[in-house]
């Protein structure tokens, strides 16, 4: 799995089935990347 993909899925109880991404190949090419607002260096 590519290290660049940072898709975080919520705990199972919160997520409807429809949000699961079924095709692994699509994950490699995802048009969405995610990070926490805390995830960039230069803010203390």
């Amino acid at each position, binding site marked *: 799995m590519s290290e660049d993909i940072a*898709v*975080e*899925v*919520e705990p199972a109880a919160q*997520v*409807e*089935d*429809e*949000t*699961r*991404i*079924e*095709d692994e190949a*699509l*994950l490699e*090419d*995802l*048009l*969405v*990347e*995610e*990070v*926490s*607002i*805390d*995830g960039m260096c230069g803010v203390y």
Partner: protein
Amino acid sequence: MFDLDGAWQLDERVSVRPERFGALLYHFGTRRLSFLKSSTLLDVVRRLPEQPSARAACAHAGVPDSELPRYRAALAALAASRMIRRRT
């Protein structure tokens, strides 16, 4: 599997900022940032509230059928991170 035929919209607590490469979405509740890596995807997301379905929004944004799985996966990711939600 993400429901393309459902009615969707951006969560009210999301701020959208268009960028050269697509857009930044920031959710004030979850404090998470999503980077949309295509302007077309931004266009799809913006059309969601006014179209009867996500599929229609994709069509109006000019997403070719061959690209639909890719956009469906992207919308699934946005739903998982609560950036978009079903319209009630």
